[in-house]
């Protein structure tokens, strides 16, 4: 039997069932299960043929419907007959449908209220102190912002197209000690200041590793005050404590 199916946006299987029952003007207390199951499955088929993602819940409901249908078809056993009032297999479904309808209605009632910032508006008090505070509020720097900062630096360095033999360049350990001395006596340091105006690839990588190492050692904290804003290095331990530390290459495991 061909069904005329219109695919609406259904919130879920209960929503779809309510729609089908209503469309066919069925009595909710006496749902013709065979008919509704057929229509429900046909709708799901149609959704599938439209390549709509069928959520597992729709399939679960299909199984429930088929299960109810089979229970209605089976003759009642004698045990069931002894239990005088055996519950209609459809009862739970009906309860859920009515309950769902209740909250669907409540949702639409809530939506029809005058909503703040949609239908009614209140004053927003732009307090100057508060605005300044927000700007200065630091948040921790995410991994992707860090990667973006590194890429920004590397992008500016031309790819070297010759083989360059150089003496041993600066090591990560040296760089860590340099950064620490750069930070000494300062409250913070912008990420960009770690690098010379036109750093070599080697310097960028070594400096970046040194910075990450410091973060790992919990000696430096990376903060920023806006997404994609400047990244700031903050010393995370007291200065006297820092000065006493001497980084040894063996400790860090870099060469």
């Amino acid at each position, binding site marked *: 039997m061909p069904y005329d199916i219109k695919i609406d946006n259904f919130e879920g299987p209960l929503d779809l069932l309510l729609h089908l029952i209503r469309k066919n003007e069925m009595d909710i207390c006496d749902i013709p299960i065979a008919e509704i199951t057929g229509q429900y499955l046909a709708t799901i088929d149609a959704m599938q043929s439209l390549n709509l993602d069928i959520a597992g819940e729709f399939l679960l409901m299909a199984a429930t419907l088929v299960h109810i249908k089979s229970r209605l078809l089976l003759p009642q056993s004698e045990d069931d007959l002894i239990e005088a009032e055996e519950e209609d297999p459809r009862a739970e479904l009906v309860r859920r449908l009515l309950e769902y309808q209740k909250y669907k209605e409540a949702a639409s009632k809530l939506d029809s209220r005058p909503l703040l910032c*949609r239908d009614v508006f209140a004053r927003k008090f732009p307090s100057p102190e508060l605005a300044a505070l927000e700007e200065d509020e630091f948040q921790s720097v995410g991994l992707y912002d860090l990667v973006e900062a590194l890429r920004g630096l590397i992008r500016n360095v031309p790819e070297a197209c010759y083989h360059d033999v150089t003496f041993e360049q600066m090591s990560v350990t040296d760089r860590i000690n340099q950064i620490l001395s750069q930070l000494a006596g300062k409250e913070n340091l912008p990420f960009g200041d770690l690098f010379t105006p036109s750093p070599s690839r080697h310097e960028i990588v070594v400096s970046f590793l040194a910075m990450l190492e410091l973060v790992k050692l919990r000696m430096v904290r990376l903060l920023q005050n806006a997404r994609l804003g400047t990244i700031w290095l903050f010393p995370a331990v007291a200065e006297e404590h820092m000065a006493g530390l001497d980084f040894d290459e063996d400790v860090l495991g870099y060469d």
Partner: protein
Amino acid sequence: MDTIDLKPIIEALIFVSESPVKAEQIAEALDVEKPVVVPLLRQLCSDYASDSRGIVLEETAGGFQFRTRPEYAEWVRRLSRNKPFRFSRAALETLAIIAYRQPIIRAEIEYLRGVDSGGVLKTLLDKHLVRILGKKDVPGRPMIYGTSRDFLELFGLKDLSGLPTLKEFNELALEAPPAGDESP
């Protein structure tokens, strides 16, 4: 203080407040008892309601706040160049269920809606409309959810008892306009 007319002072205090002000806060600022303030607040509310004003004084989320009248929303939006926001049906259904059934756990919400509600619940938490009340003492220790103060403020509710009464159904209602599609 008896000789001073407190009403205009109260009006000023409400005007400068960013969020709904409680009667207690006003009483404290004016150094009077709360019962002195409450009737004056009620008077102010009816003053604004009776005059032909663009704003009304509303009791919301346990406090008082000046708000524009809903019929002028279009003009306010034109000035602020804001588009009206719209709730998704999933968000509204979930909010309604939490509002009426709190304290509630996610499994109960999902049973009532018949669909996974993890994503929409997270959005509501992020928007501070829903908050975590605690953990239920059952296996898995699921989170218990309830609505927040922001929820009351957004929907202009005095408190949870101000929610419209739930209609019990014994049969199918006639096709109701789907939530979320209503024009503001």
